């Protein structure tokens, strides 16, 4: 892999890296349509929150766009069939997730007709809807953040609607190397992107929308600029930002564009901004204006391990194998398959993994850089120089090794966005991000354990309290009986005893 030329000075964002873009290989041809595959695997969880609940049974025939799993709980998103066909199974299937290799999927055997379901509701211009009605409609479209975070868009908007807001920020900053799906989407579907932004602005009653694009995407900038000119909508402002990783992170983008820091543990809405990916905006447009839920997305298929890198429009549930074969198949020596980009992606072991709502990139790498042994940290501080959060990774690493939870918190472990910049500049080859990920998981485990212990303690205490009350009540009862008997005097006691004796006689044989 080529060397990242490390230059790290930029406007309002601390640190960051200039990485080799590696994007031109996949941007030379327009977005290609992946043919209808034989089979689709739709994971019931493709979003942050609770998994969706299947509403179809095995053997049932479904149409394209039909609801197959409905959202469940307060944070969830529905799933729709991305082509017509028969449900053949609902079973575990390999997926790309951080923990666990398999997850329940609805498997559809496509009939090839690709017959779409009739929209359940009459389509109408978006501005005829009340904002809250629009919010509810967006929630039903199964739309999630397509930048990779896959937070259900409906819930994000509903939360945002409760806050005082100033800007909608449309995120066209695709800062990870290799990925170019948003670039191509903006080039080819600028009108949809802006149309979606108008819907979002109407839903949140926002006066301004910043469309932010990195300076290394001149075609996308001119396409969006042209579309803005045609729309003549004064609310749009096009902003260019320098090409520096990781300026496309939600909080980083807010900081870059507005110079406001999103508070730790908070959301951009805390500083008056709501950020949506350009792909999400286009998906909102297609759902509200065309009635098509989120059943397909643009994905970059690229890397030295792919014969002809390109961007494809793939139905959600299409396996990576099908997508790669459209891109000419694997090159000799393809050895690593990554879902996502080279900085934050996740490696998967099989290409049976389906393209899901989060899949912005399928990256195939060939040559494996020798996994060199980490050497001791020499405290050079380069990691701190590039950290966009201004953490001190070398201190965090030290305390992560010692498993010192309170120090880790003090040094801001929970604020780490796992962008991977520190790994790239570490002369000692320390896998810092992986260490931090593990340390976070350990802290989470510790927290969960603490919460469990707390619940158990409460339960135990309330049981003790109950038992004590019971005991006190019984003692009270006994005392009352005794008092009553004493009050009645000795004759009464005799009478009771007598009655007891005679009772015994009666009971005898």
């Amino acid at each position, binding site marked *: *892999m080529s*060397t*990242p030329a490390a230059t790290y000075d930029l406007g309002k964002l*601390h640190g960051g890296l200039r990485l080799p873009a590696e994007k031109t290989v996949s941007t030379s041809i327009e977005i290609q349509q992946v043919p209808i595959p034989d089979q689709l695997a739709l994971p019931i969880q493709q979003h942050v929150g609770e998994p969706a609940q299947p509403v179809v049974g095995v053997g049932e025939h479904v149409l394209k766009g039909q609801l197959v799993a409905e959202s469940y709980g307060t944070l969830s998103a529905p799933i729709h069939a991305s082509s017509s066909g028969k449900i053949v199974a609902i079973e575990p299937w390999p997926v790309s997730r951080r923990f666990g290799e398999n997850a329940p999927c609805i498997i559809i055997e496509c009939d090839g007709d690709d017959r779409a379901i009739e929209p359940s509701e009459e389509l109408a211009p978006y501005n005829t809807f009340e904002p809250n009605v629009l919010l509810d409609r967006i929630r039903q479209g199964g739309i999630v953040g397509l930048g990779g975070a896959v937070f259900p868009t409906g819930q994000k908007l509903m939360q945002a609607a409760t806050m005082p807001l100033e800007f909608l920020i449309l995120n066209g900053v695709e800062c990870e*190397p290799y990925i170019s799906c948003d670039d191509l989407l903006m080039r080819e579907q600028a009108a949809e992107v802006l149309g979606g932004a108008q819907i979002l602005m109407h839903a949140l009653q926002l006066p301004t929308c910043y469309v932010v694009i990195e300076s290394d995407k001149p075609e996308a900038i001119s396409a969006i600029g042209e579309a803005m000119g045609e729309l003549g909508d004064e609310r749009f402002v096009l902003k260019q930002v320098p090409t520096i990783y990781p300026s496309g992170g939600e*909080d980083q983008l807010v900081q870059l564009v507005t110079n406001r*820091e999103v*508070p*730790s*543990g*908070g959301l951009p809405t805390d500083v008056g901004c709501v950020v949506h990916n350009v792909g999400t905006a286009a998906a909102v447009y297609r759902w509200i204006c065309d009635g098509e839920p989120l059943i397909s997305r643009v994905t970059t298929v690229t890397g030295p391990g792919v014969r002809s890198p390109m961007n494809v429009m793939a139905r959600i549930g299409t396996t990576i*194998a099908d997508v790669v074969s459209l891109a000419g198949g694997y090159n000799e020596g*393809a050895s*690593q*398959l*990554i879902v*996502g980009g*080279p*900085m934050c992606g*996740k*490696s*998967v*072991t*099989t*290409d049976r993994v389906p393209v899901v709502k989060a899949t912005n990139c399928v*990256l195939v790498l060939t040559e*494996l850089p020798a*996994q*060199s*042994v980490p*050497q*001791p940290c*020499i*405290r*050079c*501080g380069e990691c*701190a*120089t590039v950290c*966009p*959060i*201004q*953490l*001190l990774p*070398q*201190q965090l690493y030290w305390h992560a090794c010692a498993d010192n939870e309170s*120090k880790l918190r*003090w040094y*801001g472990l929970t*604020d780490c966005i796992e962008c*991977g910049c520190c*790994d*790239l*500049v*570490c*002369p*000692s*080859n320390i896998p810092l*991000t*992986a260490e931090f*990920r593990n340390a976070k998981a350990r802290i989470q485990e510790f927290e969960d354990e603490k919460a469990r212990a707390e619940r158990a303690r409460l339960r135990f205490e309330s049981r003790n309290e109950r038992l004590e009350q019971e005991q006190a009540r019984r003692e009270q009862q006994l005392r009352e009986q005794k008092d009553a008997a004493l009050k009645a005097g000795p004759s009464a006691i005799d009478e009771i005893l007598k009655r007891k004796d005679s009772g015994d006689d009666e009971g005898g044989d």
Partner: protein
Amino acid sequence: MQFERREAPFISPTTNVASMMRQVIYALIPAALAYVWYFGAGFIFNLVIASFFCLLGEAVMLRLRGRPVEETLLDYSALVTAVLLAFAMPALTPWWVTATAALFGMVVAKHLYGGLGYNLFNPAMAGYVMALVAFPMHMNLWTAPRMGDIDYHFMTIAETARYTMTGTLPDYLSFDAISRATPLDFVKAGLNDMQTFEELRAYPVMGDFGGRGWEWIGNFTAIGGGWLLLRKIIRWQIPFGVLAGLLVPSGLAYFLFPGVHPSPGFHLFTGGTILCAFFIATDPVSAATSTRGRLIYGFGIGFLIYAIREWGSYADGVAFAVLLMNIAVPAIDYLTKPHIVGHAGNSDGPVP
């Protein structure tokens, strides 16, 4: 198809410790050549002896501590210590003095603290100070630079080798004939003798701006330092801090009380100032790590160099200044933790 599993990021780092250390050594080549030109072959003997004992000390300690020996030796960190030590020692030093310094630096200052990355003190400076305290006579014997006084005797390679191996001079030479006060010693003694700095400046030993020979070693060291800055092997904060910490007080003293204080230019180009600013204070392991912390750390070293030169009994104070600030590093790091993005202010309470 099956694939391997790895953890993100999938791009490998392009730097490594060994290449950083190698570049530090390369950056010192011009200064080393200047050193040999002005002070003779003794520097090369010192360098060889220091390298041998540094590597030996490192290897033995790694072995005893059950760490990989070969890979660690190849990180060049022991060699950097040896090179810095060779620069710090007088050109004419018996081998056992250099060996003591090298072994103390490696064994005590580096490995007893946990090896590379864990040492609190700069190993080269710790070794140097150890030798300075243990062998004051040898450590204060400086030869005259080439083109010095009219009656100087520039030692031949054979004479230098003999002294290095045995600690004795040939019968026809005396210490008085070959040794000279360094410019720092000379100025200190002269000012104590109620001469003004302007008067002292007229002596040939003072050279053009920082002492004959020394000023050119300083210049070549600065070139190497500049190259390291360009390569981003070191960052500007520590060199800037050291120079500011030395030049600000010496400049004030020079301009406020003319005549009785050396000029800031003299402070800058003489002794170990530039070597310290770019190569010694910038040792990452024993330096502060945050941006502000590095400025403070550098400034502290610069100021201590000034204080020792001005008020101390030693002519130069680089090694003591560095070691004293090494002690302060944990406190500096704690007090200069940068503001974490998303947290109001920097008041996250005391460290738990």
